[in-house]
């Protein structure tokens, strides 16, 4: 009988403790990010989607169609076609860089192996589309311009970060 009463009282205390916590939180500021108006700030290393930024000095992308990224891609999401001159000799330039975002895992392996820093992961994250076909993009034709910072910042973006 005594245990019965004790159980009820200790139980009620744990319940009241919980209620005190929720009551306390009622007067705290909400943590919500009002999405379409406010947007999350992405970090430098954020892996949005693959882009091939235009090098402003060169006036063109830095790709040499060396196929290293194609070999590195675990999902075979990249296909590169080399540009040829009139005689049919291949030039160190990509005619097309087909990137399939539908199969991309955003693993960053292609960016890490690229010896020319031609490709980089952008900070975009609203990548949903209505049509599956528009997930396949030709990055050469896209002529992507990285926003925000100047010049060839992405080439040294990890070195510029403050280290421990």
């Amino acid at each position, binding site marked *: 009988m005594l245990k019965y009463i004790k159980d009820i009282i*200790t*139980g*009620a205390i*744990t*319940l009241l*403790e*919980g209620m005190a*916590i*929720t009551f306390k*939180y009622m007067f705290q500021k909400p*943590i919500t990010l009002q999405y379409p108006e406010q947007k999350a700030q*992405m*970090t*430098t*290393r*954020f*892996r949005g989607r693959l882009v091939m930024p235009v090098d402003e000095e060169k006036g063109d992308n830095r790709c040499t169609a060396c196929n290293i990224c194609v070999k*590195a*891609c*675990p999902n075979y999401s990249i296909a590169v076609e080399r540009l040829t001159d009139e005689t049919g000799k291949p030039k160190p330039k990509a005619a097309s860089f087909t990137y399939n975002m539908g199969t991309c*895992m*955003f*693993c*960053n*392996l292609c960016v*890490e192996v690229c010896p020319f820093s031609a490709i980089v*992961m952008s900070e975009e994250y609203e990548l949903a589309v209505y049509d599956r076909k528009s997930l396949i993009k030709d990055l050469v034709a896209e002529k992507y311009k990285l926003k925000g910072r100047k010049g060839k910042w992405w080439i040294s973006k*990890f070195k510029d*970060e*403050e*280290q*421990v």
Partner: protein
Amino acid sequence: MAEKLPASLEKLNTEEYLLNMGPQHPSTHGVLRIILKLDGEVIKDVVPVMGYIHRGMEKMFENRKYDQIIPFTDRTDYLSAVNNNFAYVIGVEKLLGVVVPERAEYLRVILAELNRIMSHLLWLSAYGMDVGAFTPLLYIFREREEIIAMFELITGNRLTHNAFRLGGFKYDVPKTFFEKLEKFISHFADNLDEYETLLINNVIFKSRTVGVGVITKALALSYGVSGPSLRGSDIKMDVRRDTPYSAYSKFVFEIPTGKNGDTWDRCEVRMNEMRQSLSILQQAMQGFPQGDIMAKIPKIIKPPAGEVYTAVEGPRGEVGFYIISDGTEKPYRVKMRVPSFSNLSALKDMTVGFKIADVVAIMGSLDLVIPEIDR
């Protein structure tokens, strides 16, 4: 109801019926189907049906190069991507005979422990949902978001990090990471206590978990249950202690265990484990060494022929990779030992005789991740 009823009364007997729980059910945490045989609310039999998201990971591994496999391992157990990376990476490094620099080892430990906390936090919030408390989820997600932001700083991704490389890390740690980590450590313990008061010590929660889903020591071992679920049954099992890998032998930590092997013990073990992880994080942060972050590894990775089994202590239990190399660029066979697979196999012995509501509580306490089971 043991005695046989006369034929005329047979029709008055309660009917046992079958009920599908899943594949589309709010509390199966993924596409898992469980066929329950019920008598009223009481469970008579449990048959899990799996494979709804079987992707043939092991077959895929056989067709990828060694370094390309890492991002796939993220996607088996998406809640502990780092620990999956860890198990695979140390396996290949063992085959290659690579010694990873200390700085990388420490960073790996930090990431793995953060990942453990992150996974346990998600478990705690989802478990709150399972037992009907919605509010803890939103509090817990604040902390989880902090950890995700830290991962984003280092790896650039929020969930499937693809953080590790063979031989260490590709990039070094940014300074802001440690600032954030320090801030996180400073307030996390208090918040954890608060969640414990709000959820774990609540009398309703206790009445739903204490004595529910008991699994004995011997049975748990026989079923190959691992991780917090096994520790709940009072077995001091921890791969970090039993077969120390990476830098874990350098840290001091305890292995929390439960007493009765019931659902509440498993919950409490996870809560205490987060505290231990926090202490490991503190130690690792204080002793974080200088030096290289990447070992010298060949450009084309061709481990010598041989086989190795390496396991790490994931948030759910022992994550192991059994890798057979035949000396080529691609592994001959990779077998994943996933904790949820064995943990789920013990479900039947835990649940029979309890009620529908308990199935949810028990499954939640096992912390199942279905893609990991299906692979």
